[in-house]
């Protein structure tokens, strides 16, 4: 009988103990992959959202930073607004390359983003060429908005669909994009959060691009000094509350993972200690028959690795499928947007999870296996 055959027989021989090791590794690999996927998915979504925003500064009414960020990131309704003349004042500041106002409205579950196609530099670059002239009564849909026909009905209007954006995993997937004329019509019937409609000519936020070579932080400070009632948010600091939440989540996951890791390693180590103790005589017979210490060591380690590999693969498949299918629920439960990582990124995560599970099994089993492989046959037989 070869080494693998012996290991397989031993796995089948003690089903309960094999099941304990199997479940420990399955849980460990599955939890490791699912937490990594959630954190990576949130990061991917945040990065994609920031790329999509494409502005150096997001100028919002003073005190409304969190509200606007919530609208952009989680699609929560907002009724904040600032007067339209502020856009001209921002535009007139030295060092400003481009300014584009946006208006956020909410109808049911859909976030409506009104933008100015003439000055826009954040939404249209993501569209195909033919969709770039967005007129009144036309709409661009986010990736998650369903529509089976060529028209999209919202707030009593039937809008012609002109294009669709790629998914970001955030609220922008559930958003529809219209020009400011269409938004102005909708503003009459769509209350932003169930309260009074925003006044005509007002905007929710202004996206700003500064000229090359201009320090963005200094420009933000200058804006606050020059124009009262606005709050510029720098792109890298955008969604700061979301990053805080994600950091908290990450530390929570790391803590739980560490506990699970230690418990799983201890349980696997204990099981292998019991297994090796029980088999002392059997191992002694093998040694007396001419099996080397290395053969004994390898056969016991192979047993651990066979169990570990099978359990880790099943755990990884179940976890990946679970996170993929329940991504919507995960996102709404923990309050962060989520985008499933790309295939290449996923492949590397799967490999890391598998390797982590196997290393844990090998390390946990190493000490008892090593000890029993050093056993003197004569002593073991006398016991």
């Amino acid at each position, binding site marked *: 009988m070869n080494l693998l055959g012996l290991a397989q027989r031993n796995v089948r021989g003690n089903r309960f103990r094999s099941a304990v090791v199997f479940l420990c590794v399955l849980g460990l690999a599955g939890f490791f992959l699912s937490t990594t996927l959630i954190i990576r998915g949130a990061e991917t979504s945040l990065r994609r959202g920031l790329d999509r925003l494409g502005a150096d500064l997001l100028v919002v009414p003073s005190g409304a930073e969190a509200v606007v960020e919530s609208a952009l990131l989680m699609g929560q309704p907002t009724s904040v607004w600032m007067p339209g003349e502020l856009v001209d004042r921002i535009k007139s500041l030295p060092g400003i390359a481009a300014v584009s106002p946006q208006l956020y409205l909410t109808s049911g579950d859909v976030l409506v983003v009104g933008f100015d196609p003439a000055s826009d530099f954040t939404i249209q670059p993501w569209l195909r060429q033919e969709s770039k002239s967005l007129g009144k009564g036309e709409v661009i849909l986010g990736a998650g908005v369903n529509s089976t026909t060529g028209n999209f009905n919202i707030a009593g209007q039937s809008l012609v669909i002109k294009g669709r954006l790629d998914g970001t995993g955030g609220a922008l997937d559930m958003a529809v994009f219209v020009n400011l004329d269409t938004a102005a019509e909708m503003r009459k019937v769509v209350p932003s959060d169930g309260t009074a409609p925003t006044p005509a000519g007002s905007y929710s936020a202004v996206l700003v691009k500064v000229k090359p070579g201009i320090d963005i932080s200094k420009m933000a400070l200058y804006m606050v000094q020059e124009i009262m009632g606005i709050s510029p948010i720098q792109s890298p600091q955008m969604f700061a509350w979301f990053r805080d939440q994600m950091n908290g989540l990450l530390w929570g996951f790391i803590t739980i993972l560490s506990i699970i890791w230690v418990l799983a390693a201890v349980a696997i180590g204990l099981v292998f200690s019991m297994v090796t103790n029980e088999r002392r005589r059997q191992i002694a017979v093998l040694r007396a028959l001419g099996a080397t210490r290395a053969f004994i060591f390898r056969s016991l380690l192979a047993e651990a690795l066979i169990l570990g590999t099978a359990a880790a693969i099943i755990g990884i498949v179940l976890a990946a499928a679970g996170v993929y*299918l329940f991504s*919507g629920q995960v996102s709404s439960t923990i309050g962060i947007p989520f985008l499933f990582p790309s295939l290449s990124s996923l492949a590397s995560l799967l490999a890391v999870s598998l390797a982590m599970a196997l290393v844990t099994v090998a390390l946990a089993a190493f000490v008892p296996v090593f000890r029993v492989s050093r056993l003197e046959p004569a002593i073991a037989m006398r016991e």
Partner: protein
Amino acid sequence: MTKILGIVILVLAVAVAVLPQFTNCQYEGKAITTAAGTTVPMKCLWTARAEIAVGVPLLAVGAIMMVSRRRSLKISSGIMGIVLGAFAIALPEGLIGVCSSAMPCNLVMEPALLYMGSIITTASLVGLVMAVRSKDKEL
């Protein structure tokens, strides 16, 4: 091994029958209001009801796979498990369907049925292959 597969199918069969009853839009208090003012249940409710008809025979499949020692019974329960698992998936995915993407049934019920249906189908397939390859004699 087929005992373990039987237990997995048995547990998931209960979940397939019960979980949709508490995760559909009607249970969450959502319904369609017609122009006449009456409320009509959304289609996810009918999917949830139909899943009971899938879950109950799946219980039998799991039980047979768990206790039976007859090769032919194991083979037929494996085939039944595959078909019923596929139905558990097909009901929300196409045969009846669920509501639009922003509705509650889309967040839990549909992915859960897809997840459980896939595991049931896979477990039944493994059980079937094992039964076909086994050398057990007919009792």
